[in-house]
C-alpha cells in the first residue's frame, strides 16, 4: 500500500472523532471546528514548508525562532507606515532570507541541517531576545489586525490562501518537474546528481521557500491580534515536525505527501481542544498526546514488521 501512513492517521482521526462525538458532541459545532481550524492555519502553512524540507531528507528546527522574528518584523514594518502588501512582501523576504541562510550552509558548506538549524535556532532566538528585551510590539496601525477586514472576511481570506498554498504544493509535488526533483534529491542525492539535478541548488531553494512560508505563517498569525509578543513560536518546531512525520513523511527523505501533513496538523491540533471537551484534566494532556503520537506510528509499523521481518535489513535510526 502506497499511502499506508496517511490512511493510518486518517483512521486515527476518525476513531478519535467517533469517541469525541459520543462523549462530547458539543465539539462538533461549526463554531468550534472553525476555531480549531483557524488556530491551525499558521501551523499548516509552516508545516507545508517543513514537508518540503523533510522530503529533501533535511530538517529545520529553527522555524520557531524564524516565526518569532518574522512576527515582530511584521509589526515593526507595519508600524513604519508602509501599506499592507508591502508589509507582507517584506516579511516574506525576511523569512526567505532566514531560510536562505540555513539553506546555503546546508547545501554548499555541507553542514548537516540539524546542526545548522540547531545553531540558528538558539542564535536567532537569543538575538531577538537581546534586541527586543522582551518588549511586545504595540500600537499597531488600525488596518493591521485582520488586514483591515472584518473578522469573518479575514478568516475567509486566510483559509482561502492556506487552501491555495496547500493545493498548489500538492499539485506541484505530483506534477511539476521542478518539485519532483525534491523527491529525487531526498531519495538518493547521488543518483539525483547523476541525473543532472543540481542537488545543492534544490536544497537551497527548499530551505528558502520554507523560510518564506514560515514568514507568511507568522504574518497570518500576527494579523489575528492587535499586538505582537516577542516570544512566540517557542516549541513550534516540535509541533510542526511532529505533524509532518506523523503525517507519514519519512525522516530519511523522498517519501511523504502534503495530504499526510494536513492530516498530521489536524490530528495534533485537534487533540488538545478535544481532550478539553471530553473533560480530561490538563495535567494529563501532554502524556496523552505523546501516547497518541506513539500509537499512531507504532500501529503503522506493526504490520510492516510482520510482513517484512527477515526481509528488510538494518534499523531505522533517524
Amino acid at each position, binding site marked *: 500500500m502506497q499511502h499506508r501512513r496517511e490512511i493510518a492517521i486518517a483512521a486515527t482521526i476518525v476513531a478519535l472523532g467517533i469517541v469525541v462525538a459520543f462523549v462530547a458532541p458539543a465539539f462538533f459545532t461549526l463554531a468550534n471546528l472553525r476555531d480549531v481550524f483557524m488556530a491551525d492555519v499558521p501551523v499548516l502553512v509552516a508545516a507545508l514548508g517543513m514537508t518540503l524540507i523533510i522530503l529533501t531528507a533535511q530538517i529545520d528546527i529553527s522555524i520557531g525562532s524564524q516565526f518569532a522574528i518574522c512576527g515582530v518584523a511584521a509589526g515593526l514594518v507595519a508600524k513604519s507606515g508602509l501599506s499592507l502588501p508591502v508589509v507582507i512582501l517584506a516579511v516574506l523576504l525576511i523569512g526567505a532570507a532566514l531560510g536562505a541562510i540555513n539553506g546555503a550552509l546546508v547545501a554548499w558548506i555541507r553542514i548537516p541541517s540539524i*546542526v545548522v538549524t540547531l545553531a540558528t535556532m538558539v*542564535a536567532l532566538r537569543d538575538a531577538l531576545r537581546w534586541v527586543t528585551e522582551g518588549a511586545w510590539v504595540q500600537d499597531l496601525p488600525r488596518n493591521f489586525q485582520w488586514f483591515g477586514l472584518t473578522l469573518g472576511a479575514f478568516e475567509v481570506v486566510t483559509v482561502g490562501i492556506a487552501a491555495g498554498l496547500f493545493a498548489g504544493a500538492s499539485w506541484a509535488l505530483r506534477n511539476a518537474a521542478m518539485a519532483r526533483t525534491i523527491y529525487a534529491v531526498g531519495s538518493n542525492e547521488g543518483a539525483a546528481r547523476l541525473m543532472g539535478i543540481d542537488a545543492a541548488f534544490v536544497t537551497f531553494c527548499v530551505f528558502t521557500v520554507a523560510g518564506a512560508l514560515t514568514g507568511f505563517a507568522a504574518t497570518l498569525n500576527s494579523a489575528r*491580534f492587535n499586538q505582537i*509578543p516577542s*516570544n512566540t513560536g517557542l516549541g513550534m518546531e516540535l509541533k510542526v515536525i511532529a505533524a509532518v512525520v506523523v503525517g507519514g513523511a519519512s525522516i530519511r527523505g523522498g517519501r511523504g505527501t502534503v495530504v499526510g501533513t494536513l492530516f498530521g496538523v489536524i490530528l495534533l491540533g485537534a487533540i488538545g481542544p478535544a481532550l*478539553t471537551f471530553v473533560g480530561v484534566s490538563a495535567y494529563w494532556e501532554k502524556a496523552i498526546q505523546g*501516547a497518541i503520537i506513539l500509537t499512531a506510528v*507504532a500501529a503503522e509499523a506493526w504490520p510492516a514488521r510482520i510482513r517484512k521481518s527477515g526481509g528488510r535489513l538494518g*534499523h531505522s535510526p533517524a
Partner: protein
Amino acid sequence: MVTVQLERMEHRVSSNHSEWVLSFALLAEILVFSAIADNFLTRGNFVEIARTSIETGLLALALTPVIVSGGIDLSVGSMMGLAAVVFGAAWQDWHAPLIVSAALALLAGFLGGALNAVLIARFRIPALIVTLGTYSLFRGIAEGITHGAVNYSGFPKAWLSLGQGYLGDIIPAQLPIFLIVLIGYTVLLHRSTIGRAVYAIGFSADGARYAGIPVAKRVGLIYLLSGLVSSLAALIYVAHLGQAKSDAGTGYELDAITAVVLGGTSVFGGRGGIGGTLLGLLSLAVLQNGLHLAALPSELTGVLTGTFLLVTIGIDAMRARPRRKTEVEEETPMRNSQLAILCGVILAGALIVAGTNAWLVRSLRPADDATRVAVDAHKRPVIAMMPKAKGDPYFVSCRRGAEEAARELGVDLVWDGPTGLDAAKQNEIVESWITRQVDVIAVSVENQAGISTVLRKARQHGIRVVTWDADAAPDARDFFVNQATAQGIGETLTDEAARLLNGSGEFAIVTGALSAANQNEWIKFIRQRIEHEHPLLKLDTIRPSDDDRDKAFVETQTIVKAFPGVKLVMAISAPAVPGAAEAIRQMGRKDLDLIGLSLPNICKPYIHSGVVQEIVLWNTTDLGYLTVYAGSLLSENKVASGAKSIQAGRLGTLEVRGSDIILGTPLIINRDNVERFDF
C-alpha cells in the same frame, strides 16, 4: 592501493580534527575570558563550572553513542522530569527509604529507555519520531502524577550533599559519579566490541547486519542506557537543587545535543567520540560561565553558541569536502597540519572579534561611563539583580525601576537571569556572582529550596542578599522586598470574581505553565478562599497557557465552548490576559467577564473596550526601584536587621515587617485608573 584506502578509512574513523579545532577554541575562550571577566581564572570558578555542567554532561555522554549509531534521543530531558518526580513521590508520599526511592527512579529511567529501545530497535520506527513522542509522554506523566504543582523538597542533608557538597573541600561531590559514567562510556564505546558495533551501525546499518552484528540488540542497549543515565542525572539534579518537580531538566536535551555535535560527533552516524563530547561540553560551560562573569547579557550565549557550532562544524565540513568529489590521489602529510593551523587561526580570529565586540558592547552600555571612571576611586557598589525570566514583560518593567534607582544612587546594576523559568540556571548565575564578588545580590526566587543554599554561601562571602518578588528561606537573605503575598493575590482575585458574579457562578482559570510555582501558590489560595468565603463559586477547569499569548487565546476559545456555564475567566499569567481578552472579543461574548493578573500596558486596549474588567497587580516599576534602594542601603550598612522602616527615594518611608520590606497593597487596575500606569 587497498592498504592505502584502508588506512584512509581508519584515518577517517579515528582522527578527529574537530577535536583539535575545538581545543584551540576552548583555549581562545579561556584567554579571552581571563582578560575580560572578573575572577575567571580561579580554582573556585573551575569547580563551579564542573559542578553546573554535570547533569547536562551525563546526558551528553548518554547521547554520544546514540548519535554515533546514527540515531537521536530527544526524550532525555523529559526523562529527568519523570525520574525526579518518581524519586520525590517515592520518598515523600510512599515513605520509602532514600536508597529505595533512588532505585525506583533509576527503574523508571530503565523502563523509559526500554520503551524507546523496543520501539526503535524492534519496531524500527525512526528514533526521531519515537523520542519526539516519548518527549511528550514522559514529561506528561510527570505532570499528570504531580498535577504540575507538587514540589518535593526537604530532602535530608546527606542526600543534598551529593549535589551541593565537596569532597576534601575542593571536588564537587557529584564529580566522581560523572567520572565513573565517563569511564564506563569510554570503555563501552572505544574499548569494546559493542562500541565498534555501534560505529559500524552508524556507518551502515545494513553493512553491520551483513557483518553479523546483532543490530537491534546493540541499538536497543544504547537507548536503554540513555534512559538509565538520564534518571541518574535526575537524581543529581534533585540533590543539586534540593527539589524534585515535573519540570526538572526542561530543555536539557538541546544543550546535551549541542555539546555532542560541537564535539565533532556526526549526526549521520559513524564518527565522533566521548573525548569530543567532553571538549564540546567544556567549551559550552566555559562560554556560559565566562559571559556571566564578564557581566555580558546571557542572550549572547545563544548567539555565540550558534556561531561556534557553525564555525567548528563548518570548518570540519569544508575540510572533508574535497574527498567527496574525486578521490584525491595522494594527500601530502603536510595538508592536515596546515589545515589544523588554519582552523586554529580562523577560530582565534573569530573569537578575538567576538571578544572585542563584547568589549565594545560592554563599554557602550552604561551611558555614564565617564562618571564611572571618575568615581572608580571609591569603587561603586555593584548590585546584581536577577529576575525569574529575563524576557517576561513583567520583569522587563521591574528592570526599568531598578535602573532608575541605580542612576539616582550611583551604583552599578548588573541585570541578568535565565531566559525562561529555570531554577538550575538561577543557581548557576548566583554562583558566578559570588565568584565575581559583587556587593549585593537581589533575586526573584524561582525555587526556594534550591537557591537558599547558594544564597547562604553568598552571605558567608560577605555579600548582602535581598530577595524580591518571591522569597527564599528567611535565613538565606537579609531582607525580602514583599510586593504582595500569594495569599493577598489569591484572595483579591477571588473576591473580585465573586463581586462580578454577584457571589455565585462558574468560572475558569487560564494559568501560566502547569508547573509554575507562583501560579500554583495563587491557585491554592484561590481554592481556599472559595471554600471559606464564596462557597457558591465553582471553579470548572484550569488550563495552561505556557505564558504564550496565542495558546491562551486558543484555550479560552475552547473553555468557553466546552464549559458553557462559565461566566468569568480568570487569567493569571501576564501574556494570558490579552490572549483570553482577544478570544472573548472575537467571540463577541459581552456577557463574559475577564479578570486576571497582568501588566496594564499590554491590557490597555481591552480594559478600555470593556473586555477586561480589571487586573490585579502592584506597581512593578516601583518594585524594581525599591529593591535596588534596599540593596544599596544594605551595602552601605544604613539599614540594620531590626529596622522598622526604610527611606526609599521617591517612594518615601516604607514599613518593614520583620525582615519584609512592604511595597504596598495590590492595585486593582480598571478603566478609571489604567492610564495612570505605564509599565
